């Protein structure tokens, strides 16, 4: 039992993160102060949420490249609206952002499932379309901190047990995803479709329905992160989260989500995001030239994946995992 835990991918990943924190802590003791570590968690929260929702899509052998653009468009739309109607309650903006995100996700899903446009083409296309629409709706201008209402920005600074609101949202999403993927028919069916699509279809799983659902959920959380992102940085510009989809996908891959579909755990995915978040925060904190940081972070990610995959042989493809 213990041996099984220690050699599991998730545990190895966890050990790598702890090892990293200790090493950086020795180099710069300031980094491991509780306040500093809680900053890392806050900073990684959005990445965790997006990685978990991306996982749904990757499980069924697809990918959603449009998440960052979706996030940015939802965020920009509610920001513009909040400058016009600052008196509306903040929960309205959050729900609206989620709805916009879901709608954009449904468009992806419909294009892939019904129109049969390959997922890579669809989401590459919407990546540009959604990003382009931001320029269109915002006229290329940005919404900056003084233009938001106080309520809009206040929520994000709320703290519970000295951990940020953002972090608790990520915890809630983690629990939700854990239940969804491990204890519901929906989750099991996603694994089945990714593991063996043909068999899944034979036992009566409606593939199209699940494609659309997975992309809608990915969109929903991108929309949620749209609000979180804008409120956190209190700026909405055409540039927000540009290129962030690649960070999200690398978090999934590091977390052991197989791009071949059907394999991966919620815990692994979360740890993958935490590792990337840790690297992003730790490198500027130790005295390494900024010009090296990009290459180093890439190398650490690669090493983590190699250690991770070496310790566990890939299982035969299974229809039902665990």
């Amino acid at each position, binding site marked *: 039992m213990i041996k099984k835990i220690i050699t599991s991918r998730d545990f190895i990943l966890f050990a790598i993160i702890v090892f990293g924190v200790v090493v950086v802590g020795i180099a710069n003791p300031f980094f491991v102060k509780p306040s500093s570590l809680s900053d890392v968690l806050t900073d990684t929260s959005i990445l965790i949420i997006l990685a978990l929702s991306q996982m749904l899509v990757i499980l069924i052998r697809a990918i959603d490249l449009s998440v960052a653009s979706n996030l940015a468009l939802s965020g920009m739309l509610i920001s513009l609206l909040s400058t016009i109607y600052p008196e509306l309650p903040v929960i309205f903006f959050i729900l609206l952002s989620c709805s916009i995100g879901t709608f954009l996700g449904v468009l992806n899903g419909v294009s892939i499932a019904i129109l049969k446009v390959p997922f890579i083409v669809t989401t590459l296309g919407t990546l540009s379309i959604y990003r382009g629409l931001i320029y269109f709706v915002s006229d290329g201008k940005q919404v900056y901190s*003084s233009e938001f209402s106080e309520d809009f920005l206040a929520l994000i600074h709320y703290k519970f047990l000295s951990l940020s609101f953002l972090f608790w949202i990520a915890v809630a999403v983690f629990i939700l995803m854990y239940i969804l993927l491990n204890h519901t028919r929906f989750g099991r069916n996603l694994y089945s479709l990714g593991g063996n699509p043909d068999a899944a279809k034979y036992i009566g799983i409606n593939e199209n329905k699940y494609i659309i659902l997975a992309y809608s959920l990915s969109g929903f959380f991108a929309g949620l992160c749209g609000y979180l992102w804008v409120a956190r940085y209190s700026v909405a510009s055409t540039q927000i989260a540009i290129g962030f989809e690649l960070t999200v996908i690398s978090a999934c891959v590091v977390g052991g989500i197989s791009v071949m579909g059907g394999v991966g755990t919620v815990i692994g995915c979360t740890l993958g995001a935490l590792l990337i978040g840790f690297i992003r925060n730790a490198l500027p904190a130790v005295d390494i030239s900024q010009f090296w940081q990009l290459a180093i972070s890439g190398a650490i990610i690669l090493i983590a994946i190699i250690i991770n995959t070496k310790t566990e042989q890939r299982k035969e493809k299974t229809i039902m995992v665990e």
Partner: protein
Amino acid sequence: MLFISIMIIIYRRNKMKKILLVLSSFLLISFNTYADDMRIALVVKGLGIGFFEAAAEGGEEAAKEIGGIEVIYTGPATTTAEAQIEVINSLIAQKVDAIAISANDRDALVPIGKKAMQRGITVISWDSGIGEDGRVMNLDPSNTALIGSSNIKWMKNSMGDEGEFAILSATSQATNQNAWIEEMKKEFAKPEYSKMKWVDTVYGDDLFDKSYQEALGLFKKHPNLKGIIAPTSVGIVAAAKAVEDQGLVGKVFVTGLGLPSEMKAHVKSGAAIQFGIWNPIDLGYSAVYLSHQIASGAFKGQEGECIPTGRMGEICIGAGNSAAMADPFIFDASNIDKFAEIF
């Protein structure tokens, strides 16, 4: 990428429609080529940056004043030289009359600038220059030495004459920021700054989230940090926001170059005491005005010339075919409200 998906959709339809589309796009191009107006392209470091939006406004103003000018405000989505080269390539294909560029890289844009000039297009650089071979003239927003020394002075006024400070710049290749940082070093060597310590220089690439991240990194790496100089309108806002979010107001002070409208909240919060910038509207205005004066053949844009530039008076070109527009203007709690309304 969008193009690919469109092409695939088209490919799935019949051939006739495809031919029609290609034909109509040719028509569109030829229509553009024969427009009467002089077309001046204002190429910026990246779209969606408040400073450049304001500069574009100034460009439009100059166009209206002179008459018969169409200003094409454009730039890449990401602040890289490669992306800018693509933009300029497409402008060359459209046969615009003049291109005025704020460069993401001083050297990387020289070949494309040369190519444009060989095609008979007037190329000037403004705000952030291109190497001498790649343009006719360069318009600096202000005297480079003065900007550099001012930044150090503002830092001293904000944090006091003792303690650690760091620089948060734009991209590591940015022509203007690098020149200012060099000048800051010269000013910093003076004895009155001997108790201040320059501990770091980091690059936020003019992206808000990256700059924010770098600012957080600075706080962690240098727990005794007292000041950040961000000579970029994106970096200064990100740094001020990071100071506020970390509860460091009163401990770390931010200064540099920023827009009053974007910095207003941060001056009120106390994260920034004093900062400066020149008027971006004036800068865009001058860039378009000068482009017109040179593209129309009235002036050559050579050293020693003084070119009338509408309401900005005459701008005189100095060594290296480079000119400076005006002195930086300082903002603090006393005047921020007034200027936040303007730009």
